[in-house]
């Protein structure tokens, strides 16, 4: 019955505290940075003013530590901490990352449960209250039972000063009747937002186990490595300063010295001179029995923060009255060596290491024996030694050439954030290794604007055109390139036409040796690339000249890439990507070994200006587009004299290929103001001149315009990319051996109809604001002066114009008309749709297609 009543009382008190704090935290959310800063200033001032009486109260009440040092701790918690957080932005908009389009707003957490320890009661209470006030949180301070009066007095002083400066009522609360049950009730209270726990491991574990967000600390077992290069006077001074500070009660204080054998005697001598008392083996045994509870295998609370003389008295040994520290020589780490544990009192373990490796291994053992993730210390003047030590030791803070207590809490001896709650990371079962401060008590809301992806426009740095430019280039310009060995990649037909011989003659006149690889057939395979590559590796060219239709140009680009970067593999290169700038496989710029000059002898692929090459896997006949701006040729030579003898059917096919490039890049989601004029102009040129070039191959004017159209379309699509017209054409061509341009022509109208309809799935690209393919097709119709009173009419006019164009150049109207049997097509269609979906070109299509959609388009194109 009594227990039930007690439980009820505890719950009622906890509820009341939390209810008050809840109101305060609601009100506090309205405060401005200015109001908050005024409150924190007043609170810090009050705490600093009371540093002396709070220190006295703490020593009297706890019977631990050193009054004068507790004064410093209070001063640290008010002055150093306040100085550190004074100018921090903690209200409203706290940061704007302009380049990232991100605004960060601070949101308070609500109610914080601040659990404070008996070792640093008043300073920790001041510290946590100031952090809470600065972040517009309310805090319920739950002090140690053995330090209740002084803890609550510290909280009261800060609270009243805050209140007087305008803080909401109840912004700081404290527990007057502490108990395990009360702590549990507060930790698990539904309205508690965060537990900020400083204390023993069991308390911190309870906080983490409460189901509430918690920031806790772990136990330390700080090793100090004194390297043979250390400044011994400095090391001994700092260790004594730190270990005697408040009788060793800071968890970052030194626990074991690990000293290089070569300097051991000197270190011992200096320690003795500073008042260290080295225990005999017998004394060590007696001291360890009182310092470490043999049953619990942990530090005995009765020695925490006691003077050496008091500890000696408890152990029943005699030590000098002026002894400041007790030191025990130990040989090992672990349960057999109780003093290798943490001891928050002026008792140190002392190890001798034969060398650096042995010393670091001992420090590793010590941190693994109850201090993982906390703090470690090293004295050495050798930066390499410090770095190797730090690389190995798992500690949230590694303090170099400084006292570890003062170094660990930050700001006095270094620029760590000043804090009385030191995170110990995963090693100490904590969430952070940071020195906890205001940033840990805020939720950051990130407001992120829609950001447009950077776009680009990249084409070869030199594009030569007009009839005869090939001759001018090789008779004059080539001399400026400073090359010695040329490697010509071409097809058999370029050899027969005599173009290659002509280029070789020019090169010879310019003093440039040349060799020829003419074994490139249509749809170059990986095997072709590899055989060209091995010839290239033998000849070691500094100039590659690609002459021919799309195939030799594509082959030369792939060879060039692998010639320059032999470590790349085809598997890497064909890896699918969503964004060319974020792809997994990066290609460094080419050109270290050779430059590439591309000379098209058909008017269609645009390969002479693009960042793409298509390589066919000989085994599966699957085509892999490889894309990277690195493979953009250095020079493109667009000489219409080279296309005068292109056969009629090739003229028709390649003309439709150029048209499909321009159409797709105009409606691509990556299209831009830079590519649109090129795409439109290429479309106009194809419509105006393809029929004439087809009818009369000797029509030089039509040939020239068509040749330009192909390159201009290439410049558009190398920057705006393509779409599913090409995805479908790639697999359609591969499956039924249909020339690439013709395959594109077959699916063109069906793709336009599909893209012009409202997409069922939208492609994800920030720069593409909403579907507009229909309107874009209508713009093309308008540019071609086709009937276009509505977008719908424009789309239909364009489709009709394409059908007319195909008819004029003798292309079948459908796949069926081209002679593909329906049964064969039906067997292949599922696979074709799936492969087209995976095709690299699909990613920039105006509509993100389902495999089913692609199947329907294929059937529509079949006719």
């Amino acid at each position: 019955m009594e227990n039930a009543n007690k439980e009820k009382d505890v719950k009622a008190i906890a509820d009341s505290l939390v209810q008050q704090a809840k109101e305060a935290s609601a009100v506090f959310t309205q405060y401005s940075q200015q109001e908050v800063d005024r409150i924190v200033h007043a609170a810090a001032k009050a705490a600093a003013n009371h540093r002396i009486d709070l220190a006295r109260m703490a020593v009297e009440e706890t019977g631990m530590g050193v009054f004068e040092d507790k004064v410093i701790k209070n001063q640290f918690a008010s002055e150093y901490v306040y100085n550190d957080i004074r100018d921090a932005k903690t209200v409203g908009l706290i940061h704007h990352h302009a380049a990232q389009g991100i605004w960060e707003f601070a949101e308070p957490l609500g109610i914080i449960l601040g659990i404070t320890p008996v070792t640093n009661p008043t300073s920790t209470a001041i510290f946590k209250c100031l952090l809470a006030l600065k972040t517009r949180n309310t805090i319920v301070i739950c002090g140690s039972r053995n330090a209740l009066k002084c803890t609550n007095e510290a909280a009261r002083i800060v609270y009243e000063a805050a209140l007087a400066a305008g803080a909401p009522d109840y912004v700081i609360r404290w527990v007057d009747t502490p108990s395990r049950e009360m702590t549990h009730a507060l930790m698990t209270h539904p309205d508690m937002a965060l537990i900020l726990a400083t204390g023993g491991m069991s308390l911190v574990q309870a906080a983490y186990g409460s189901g509430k967000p918690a920031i806790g600390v772990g136990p330390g077992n700080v090793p100090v490595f004194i390297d043979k290069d250390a400044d011994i006077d400095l090391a001994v001074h700092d260790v004594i300063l730190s270990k005697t500070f408040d009788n060793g009660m800071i968890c970052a204080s030194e626990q074991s010295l690990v000293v290089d054998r070569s300097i051991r005697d000197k270190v011992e001598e200096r320690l003795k001179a500073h008042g260290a008392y080295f225990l005999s083996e017998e004394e060590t045994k007696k001291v360890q029995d009182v310092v470490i509870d043999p049953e619990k295998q942990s530090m005995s609370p009765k020695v925490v923060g006691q003077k050496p003389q008091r500890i000696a008295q408890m152990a029943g040994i005699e030590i000098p009255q002026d002894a400041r520290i007790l030191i025990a020589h130990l040989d090992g780490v672990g349960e057999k060596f109780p003093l290798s544990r943490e001891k928050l009192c002026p008792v140190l373990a002392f190890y001798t290491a034969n060398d650096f490796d042995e010393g670091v291994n001992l420090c590793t053992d010590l941190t693994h024996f109850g201090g993982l993730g906390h703090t470690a210390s090293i004295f050495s003047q050798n930066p390499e030694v410090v770095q190797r030590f730090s690389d190995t030791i798992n500690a949230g803070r590694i303090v170099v050439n400084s006292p570890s207590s003062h170094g660990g809490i930050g700001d006095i001896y270094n620029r760590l954030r000043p804090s009385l709650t030191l995170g110990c990371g995963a090693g100490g079962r904590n969430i952070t290794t940071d020195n906890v401060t205001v940033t840990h008590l805020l939720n950051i809301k990130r407001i992120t604007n829609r950001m447009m992806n950077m776009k680009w426009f990249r084409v070869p740095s030199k594009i030569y055109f007009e009839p005869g430019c090939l001759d001018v280039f090789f008779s004059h310009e080539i001399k400026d390139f400073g090359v010695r060995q040329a490697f010509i990649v071409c097809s058999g037909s370029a050899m027969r036409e005599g173009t290659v011989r002509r280029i070789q003659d020019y090169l010879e006149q310019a003093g440039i040796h040349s060799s020829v690889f003419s074994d490139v057939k249509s749809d170059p395979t990986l095997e072709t690339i590899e055989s060209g590559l091995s010839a290239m590796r033998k000849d070691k060219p500094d100039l590659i000249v690609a002459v021919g239709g799309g195939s030799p140009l594509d082959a030369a680009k792939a060879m060039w890439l692998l010639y320059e970067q032999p470590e790349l593999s085809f598997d890497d290169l064909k890896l699918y990507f969503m964004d060319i700038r974020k792809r997994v496989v990066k290609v460094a710029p080419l050109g270290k070994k050779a430059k590439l000059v591309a000379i098209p002898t058909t008017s269609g692929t645009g390969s002479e200006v693009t960042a793409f090459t298509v390589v066919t896997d000989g085994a599966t006949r699957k085509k892999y587009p490889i894309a990277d701006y690195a493979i953009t040729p250095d020079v493109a030579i667009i000489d219409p004299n080279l296309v005068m003898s292109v056969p009629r059917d090739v003229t028709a096919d390649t003309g439709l290929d150029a048209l499909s490039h321009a159409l797709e890049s105009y409606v691509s989601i990556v299209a831009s103001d830079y590519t649109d004029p090129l795409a439109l102009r290429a479309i106009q040129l194809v419509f105006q001149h393809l029929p004439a070039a087809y009818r009369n191959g000797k029509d030089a004017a039509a040939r020239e315009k068509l040749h330009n159209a192909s390159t201009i379309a290439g410049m558009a699509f190398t920057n705006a990319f393509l779409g599913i017209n090409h995805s479908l054409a790639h697999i359609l061509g591969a499956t039924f051996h249909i020339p690439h341009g013709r395959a594109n022509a077959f699916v063109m109208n069906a793709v336009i109809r599909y893209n012009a309809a409202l997409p069922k799935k939208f492609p994800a690209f920030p720069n593409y604001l909403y579907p507009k393919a229909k309107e874009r097709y209508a713009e093309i119709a308008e540019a071609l002066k086709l009937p276009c009173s509505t977008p719908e009419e424009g789309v239909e006019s364009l489709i009709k114009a394409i059908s007319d164009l195909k008819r004029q150049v003798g292309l079948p109207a459908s796949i069926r008309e081209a002679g593909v049997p329906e049964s064969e097509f039906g067997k292949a269609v599922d696979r074709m749709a799936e492969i087209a979906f995976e095709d690299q070109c699909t990613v920039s299509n105006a509509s993100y297609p389902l495999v089913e959609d692609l199947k329907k388009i294929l059937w529509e194109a079949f006719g």
Partner: protein
Amino acid sequence: MVSAPVITLVPSASHPEVKCLSLSGRIDTSTVNSITPAVLQAVSDSPSGLIVDLHEVSFVSSAGLRLFLTAFKNAQSSNKKMALIRLHPEVYKIFKVAGLDPMLGIFKDEKQALDEVWRKA
């Protein structure tokens, strides 16, 4: 180019019943097969156990850890002892983090290993 571990095996000067095996280089999947027979043979050849000197070893992969565990189990099943000595901090840390240090017996040098493992026993 991975250098293959070099192995030397000598009896302990002060305790000839125990053999001392020195390894060097990286102990990983590409090298472990080449040293496994020698390590296991050394365990079975040594009358009362094996000390493995890792002073020249710069890296131990999981295949390396497994080799030491196998050697340790072989030693244990024939009533022999085993110890690892002179580990660099980086290698020592692997055994600590993997929690294998209490089982395998890791010591700073041959003398300490002999004192702790063989003389005390």
